[in-house]
């Protein structure tokens, strides 16, 4: 089987994205992929599980056998309350954590077998991923551009274009410690976009942002979607997920309890909005749990 191109870098000529470099996928990466990849899917997750030891040294699953697929040119939403397992799932996709079992494949690369290749496919923006206070915005983005093996001259041009696009030109030489939350988030986004990854992950990205800054982020997400990226958007704010996402998975206590588009979920649960859908799901889960406990006691 001939190696296929799995990673295409795009630069800018000021008007549109142009290919910078094409990295052929090593044949062994494809041979050793643990799960069969489908060409249409950018992210393919099957029975992904992550367990931790709790305070009593008992294994507790933070992510419990979830499966989903995310397509290029679409925004996949991961919705759930705090502690549902969203961040853990995204950290696994970002290869910051290793799964206990199951598979996760990002653009043909298995997260366990080829973590460094996976990281080149992903731009990761999270409330947990901070920026270096003692670097300027330009230095921060330049560093991560060089870590992604982008040539120096091309990278400088790319940074200038990106800063212009994100309206960051004024703050390029500002130390990150002197920036507002919104400005820092822009730097994080620029850092994630500089190597033009095919997959973008936003984990609670609007946390701490004001309305205007959040709207800027929404525009960026929509822009990336229109450019054919696969965007995974995680949030506990129903309204923004409803606004941005083409398909949604609702997580509760480490499991996916509902998937589908917004319309499908509203129709399925006979609710007007996603928030009411979520309440219905939680109520049902609670009743099922009570029923389960009652059965055990009898």
């Amino acid at each position, binding site marked *: 089987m001939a190696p296929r191109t799995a990673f295409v870098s795009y630069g800018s000529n000021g008007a549109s994205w142009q290919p910078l470099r094409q990295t052929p996928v090593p044949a062994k990466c494809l041979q050793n992929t643990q799960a069969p990849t489908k060409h249409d899917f950018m992210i393919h997750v099957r029975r992904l599980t992550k367990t931790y030891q709790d305070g009593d040294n008992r294994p507790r699953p933070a992510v419990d056998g979830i499966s989903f697929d995310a397509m290029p040119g679409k925004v996949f939403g991961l919705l759930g309350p705090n502690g549902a397992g969203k961040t853990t799932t995204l950290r696994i996709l970002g*290869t910051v954590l290793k799964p206990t079992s199951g598979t996760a494949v990002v653009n043909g690369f298995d997260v366990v077998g080829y973590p460094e290749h996976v990281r080149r496919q992903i731009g990761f923006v999270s409330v947990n991923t*901070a*920026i*270096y206070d003692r670097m300027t915005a330009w230095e921060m983005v330049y560093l991560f551009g*060089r870590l992604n093996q982008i040539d120096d001259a091309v990278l400088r041009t790319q940074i200038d274009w990106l800063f212009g696009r994100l309206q960051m030109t004024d703050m390029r030489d500002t130390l990150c410690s002197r920036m507002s939350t919104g400005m820092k988030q822009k730097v994080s986004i620029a850092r994630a976009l500089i190597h033009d990854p095919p997959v973008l992950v936003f984990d609670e990205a609007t946390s701490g942002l004001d309305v205007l800054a959040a709207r800027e982020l929404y525009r960026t997400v929509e822009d990336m979607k229109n450019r054919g990226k696969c965007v995974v958007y995680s949030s506990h704010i129903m309204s923004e997920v409803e606004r941005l996402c083409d398909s949604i998975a609702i997580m509760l206590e480490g499991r996916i309890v509902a998937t589908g588009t917004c319309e499908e979920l509203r129709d399925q649960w006979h609710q007007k909005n996603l928030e009411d859908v979520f309440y219905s799901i939680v109520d049902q889960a609670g009743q099922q749990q009570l029923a389960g406990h009652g059965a055990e006691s009898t």
Partner: protein
Amino acid sequence: MNWLNIRLIFCREILDQLRDRRTLFTVFVMPLMLYPILGVVMLQMANFFQEHPSTIRIIGTDNLPESPALVGDGTIVEGLVHVDAIRLLKLELEPSCDGFLAAMGTDTESQVDYARTRLAEEIREQGIDLLVIVPRLIELNETVLFDGSPEFLLVYDSSNDRSRIAAQRWQIIQSEWHQRLLGEFFRSASEADSDGDDDREESGSTAMVSAIDVARPSAVGTASWARILPLLIMVWCLTGAFYPAIDTCAGEKERGTLETLLSSPASRTDIAIGKLGSVMVFSIATALLNLASMGTTAILLFSQSGFPVVAGLFQGPPPPLAIALVVLATIPASALFGALSLAAAAFARSSKEGQYYLIPLIMVSMPLMVVPMLPAIRLDMGTSLIPVTGLMLLFRSMIEGNWGQALAFAGPVLIVCVACSTIAIRWVVYQFNREEILFCPSERFAIGSIIRQMFRMRDVGPSVGHALLCTVMILILRFVCGVLVSPPGDWDQFAIQTIVLLMVTICVPALLMAVILSNKPLQMLKLSRFRLRHAIGAVLLACCLNPIFMWFSGMVMRLYPVDENLAQIATGLSGIIDGAPSLLALLAVLAFAPALFEEIAFRGFILSGLRAMTRPVVAVVLASLAFGAAHGVIQQSIIAFFVGAVLGFIAIRSNSIFPCILFHATHNGLAVIFSRWEKFGLAGTEWLVESKLDGGWGIATAPAVGLTLMAALILVICFGPPRPVAESRDGVAGRQGMATRIAQTLVAWFPGLQSANRSA
């Protein structure tokens, strides 16, 4: 490794640290300011202190001879001390000492009491710092001078600084005057000689020459610098590495930027090496700047007249070669301490927690830094294998100009340095992969929760914490009992003491913990069924490995010779052991009992606990370290470590400690028998056993080689990976199975062979 990524991370870390005010102050500003300020303060303090003269009362000046004169015109005679020092001495003279001596009495205790009372009174009321009594008439008479009684009696208070310094000043004067007195005596004796020949005059001065120092002043200075410079370099490299390491590891975790870096394409190894490079740079900068500032200040300071002793010791600034070697020494030192500091910092969950790890790091490093300062320590094969110590001794040899010695041992020193740094960096990479270190906040220590958990989880094996607790308990009990228990007087005492101590200090802690923590203590201690081939293999392996262990033991004794005190104790014990009634009694006490009790603790409880949380190899190494540490004497500890590694391997392969008990008992038994071969040896075994150069007995060379090869075979046959079921049924496959089995064993031990084979 991607060198571009390493360079990027290295540059980033350097830039980040250079923009940190605390780092800039600590590395650059503080050395340039601190030492000159300290120097000025010290000068002022020294001048202030030196301007206080010592007041000395000399009682019994009538007993002093006229020549050589000690006092004149109410002061010390010129020439006995430096002119400037005379003004620091105020004398009060009392002609007769009869009253003092009468009041003092003859009883020693009453003399001390009176002297204490009198001096306290003099200090309080008269401001006297020192009493000097001339108790007897000093004459130029052989009987008087050499009858052994002192010429002066000094009364001073060593807890009082002024009194102590007055005594020191007087002793300098007294020493010089005593030399003059003896010279005067011999001169007068020669004048009284009836020969009248001229060779008394031709023989020149009658001054007594007690010693000739052949060292040139430059060599004296070089020797002094050779001692102090390596120590300073090590200390500054350690302190210069630690805080940047904390900031770049634990600090990044706190600031949340570590997750950002870990989500980049840079591998964990690239990140660790990049950070190490930056820590090294700041460690070297700290060391050199501190050294330069401190050295410059010290040279200026000690050249003042107030510090003639120190100035004489160092004879000016260090030679250029010493400075160049010091700069060179910062590289391996910063690499070693940088790696260790990063290892400690990577384990910490926060900067605050990381700072607490500085103290254990210093506690481990300081003894290793102090050992080279001892006069008897020199660079040899034994010391070159000790981290930090070997490095210091290497550079000391180079500074002193002993290039032959330095080059002979430079290899082992640098190998140890690189090995320790590599292990530390691998630990850092391992920590970067541990999610509980990266993402969990600092834990709270709740003793109630721990105890509840302990009783709730009684059905599982021991944890790492239990294993470490058991190890600490064993070490403490061994230490306490070793101090409290007196040496045995005969064989019976020795036997009872040995067995009881082994039981109480080693076996009982493990047994108690197993009973408390588990519903199945026997299972927890791996007192389970075993295969016959494991048992037989263990005994045979002990016999076959005996020559190697005996050779290794000899090598350890040559590298680290036992000191005289320990050798005397060992000789005494050996005599007691010779009083054993039979070989069986000897083996019971020295072979079976240690085997049983030690295996229950170290391979049963401790190894099981360590295996719960780490790979088998690491668990075996750690359990062997604990086993070695429990032996107390360093030479035994080293040998026990390697024996423990073999025992650990057997325990893991057999999943039972019974084969380990058999191996251990056989190993000890053979050691006992060979140590007393003349008494217990079998006739007709001269081809097998021969006497060794160190006076003991051991396996002859040719059989030893054969036994070593047999040991390899036993490892494969008895302790190789489990056989697939299909192979055991087919006779043909069984013949082929042996080759396959050997191949499987090799692949199991060396996984790299498999991938190399596939790539080929």
